[in-house]
């Protein structure tokens, strides 16, 4: 996921990511914001890069409220003030409560401006103090964190030889990578849930449990899917805790107006299919809908634990898929929650079942 321009800022990004993770945040790195423009004669959309965020931190409170933090790390000479104003805009876009601006050395005007815009400013020295305060050992991390990042980056995306054209299958897999990396951050969660399950369903035969690259892709898919499901659970919880099924149904179909339209369209399609004698049953709810509602219900009823699902998944990904296979309880300490783990597995089981993905892709998870 790296570009040469971002390599220089990488150590500091990884450090602030770890600082946030230590405080319970799930932290996707290098989140790219794009604009999608329709082209005149073709159906597909053209992606236009808007900007990218170094570290996005998402934490769920025990009642499923979201706490979002955006961190921007710069080591070059560009104007700190401009960057802080830019960061404020990004925070507003993501509805982030806080921002962090990091630079090895910071001018005084940035220190004065940042807090006025809800942004914490940190230089290298300040970051080291913060790490110490959180009891994070930075010496071993600098090598291990970088190695892990490089391993993950090497496994991400399609790697084609120069001049090689992707096959049709590769193009479909590429669309999954692109969705998770770009589209995901620009669309609503109800769209994300349905699209992730749909797209992974299309590549189910092309990703294998004995291939680490495939597993990594499946785990990132699970991360994104889990994030969207928890966000939607939080949305339902904020509206009406006493009627999860109805609230979730409305949210899953994009709100009452869009749902009404969808129901109407589905009715027309049913009539058409009867006319055309198509035997397949057309239903508005996808096959996984009832299991998804049950999961959302459990997330809401167990919100204190469900808020930690992504933390557990992050550790499974780094420690079990790539790392030392240390016990989850040991790594997470008093954050560990069997309830969170079981809920995560329930999401993964639904993901595997309804996409047709091989269960072995999540073998690191099942054994826990």
């Amino acid at each position: 996921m790296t570009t040469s321009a971002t390599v220089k800022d990488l150590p500091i990004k990884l450090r602030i990511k770890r600082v946030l993770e230590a405080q319970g945040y799930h932290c996707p790195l290098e989140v790219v914001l794009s604009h999608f423009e329709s082209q005149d004669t073709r159906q597909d959309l053209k992606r236009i890069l808007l900007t990218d965020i170094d570290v996005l931190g998402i934490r769920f409170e025990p009642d499923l409220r979201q706490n979002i933090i955006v961190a921007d790390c710069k080591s070059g000479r560009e104007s700190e003030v401009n960057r802080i104003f830019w960061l404020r805009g990004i925070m507003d876009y993501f509805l982030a409560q806080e921002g962090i601006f990091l630079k090895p050395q910071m001018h005084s005007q940035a220190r004065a401006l940042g807090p006025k815009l809800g942004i914490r400013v940190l230089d290298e020295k300040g970051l080291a103090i913060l790490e110490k305060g959180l009891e994070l050992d930075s010496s071993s991390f600098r090598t291990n964190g970088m190695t892990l990042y490089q391993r993950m980056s090497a496994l991400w995306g399609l790697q084609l030889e120069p001049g090689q054209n992707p096959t049709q299958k590769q193009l479909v897999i590429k669309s999954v990578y692109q969705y998770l990396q770009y589209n995901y951050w620009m669309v609503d969660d109800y769209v994300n849930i349905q699209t992730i399950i749909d797209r992974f369903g299309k590549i189910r035969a092309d990703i294998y449990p004995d291939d680490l690259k495939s597993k990594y892709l499946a785990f990132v898919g699970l991360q994104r899917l889990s994030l969207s499901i928890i966000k939607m659970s939080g949305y339902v919880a904020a509206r009406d805790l006493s009627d999860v099924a109805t609230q979730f149904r409305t949210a899953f179909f994009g709100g009452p107006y869009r749902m009404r339209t969808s129901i109407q369209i589905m009715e027309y399609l049913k009539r058409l299919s009867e006319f055309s004698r198509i035997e397949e049953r057309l239903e508005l709810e996808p096959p996984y809908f009832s299991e998804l509602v049950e999961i959302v219900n459990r997330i809401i009823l167990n919100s204190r634990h469900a808020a930690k699902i992504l933390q557990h998944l992050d550790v499974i990904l780094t420690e079990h898929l790539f790392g030392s296979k240390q016990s989850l309880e040991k790594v997470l300490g008093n954050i560990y929650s069997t309830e969170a783990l079981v809920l995560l597995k329930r999401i993964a089981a639904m993901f595997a079942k309804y996409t047709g993905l091989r269960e072995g892709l999540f073998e690191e998870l099942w054994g826990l």
Partner: protein
Amino acid sequence: MSKKLRKSSIGIRIQEFHEGLKDIVNYPLKEMYIPTTIQVGKAATLATHLKGRDYVDDYRALIGLASQLGISGLELRQVLRELEEIDFVRIVESGSGIGGIRRVELKIPELRDGYEELGERWLQLHPSEIEQASVAILDEVASFPQGEGNLRSTLGLSDKDFDIIIDIGTSGLLIDRYNNDGEDLLYSPLTVEEKPDTLLDLAQQFPEDLIVTTLKTVQGYQGIPIDNLTGVNKHFAAQAMRLGALCPVQIASSATARTFLFTPRGGLKIEERVILEKARAILACVRYGEHYPEVRKIRYPHLILETLRDNKRFRYSRPDFPEQYGLLVIQQIGRIEPDTRRPGFYNFYLIDTPENMRALNIAIDLLEIGLSPTSKLEVDATALLNIGGSFLGTLPTRAKLGREVTLSRETARNYILKIAKLTRGVDE
């Protein structure tokens, strides 16, 4: 025959077969003739008791719960496997846990009942003709008493097979006979509290279809106010209530008494009947708040009952609690105290006894699925699974006397002949 039945009805009936027969010792007919029904029925019973949990990591406690539900330790793995097949359970294995099981992770649906999947699983296992007929007969007679001769000829079973089914059904207190003017009728004690003569009396006055439909309406909305029924249905309900074919709970407020109706439930022990009566009283009080409130209407009865279960009290005080919940005070289910901060308002507190908690859970079942499995009246899964440390010795155990049953002469004869054949080495 089972094609006519909805899968969810099948799921309910197979659970009733297991629960009816589970306490009978030395009764081989169930294993011989309805093994699939018993197997999936056990899975249904276990699922009912584990619903609402995410996992069980104390397998020893699970063995304890299962044994109270008529599932032996040796059978438990097989029953869990059935639940795995329908994706209600995932077993995490490890060498160190009891039986190699570290944790049983649960995915039992809560927002809908899971009987559809259980019924489907039973069908997938290709139950024998006798099993299919057993489930169909129970479903028929539970709806309304049926003439035995008529049922025999309609089903097209041999007399021997039909007798076996009736033997199994009567042994499990699921089916019973009643002689009405020389005609043998089959009925189910599950839906008739004493003898079916009240229903038969009613059948003289009302069409059978109307009786079945009204009973189903009440089962689908337990605690329905009699005022909600109209026309001939209301007339029937009033008669049925008077004759004991429907069970009323009355709540008097001001000068008006409101009546809430429940379907009857027979075949219960005295202590189970007490719990069921309490459950009906709880649900009737909530229905009162739904339909006849003085202040604010109850919109989500389920939530109200869950709040009471979890917090042992209602969240807010109200002025009409003495009228609405007075019945529960009389039945020693709760107490009402004035709100010291709001004159004229009262708080309601549940009296936290195991019996009251079980009654509350059953009230939730009645609200959700219209019935409560027998085993829920007997066993409290929460108490069994929430104990810390070892299972043995810490549990409130209830000694259960195994019921012996007598086989009919013909069935006993067939059974003995079958054993004799097997002894000779005949492979049937």
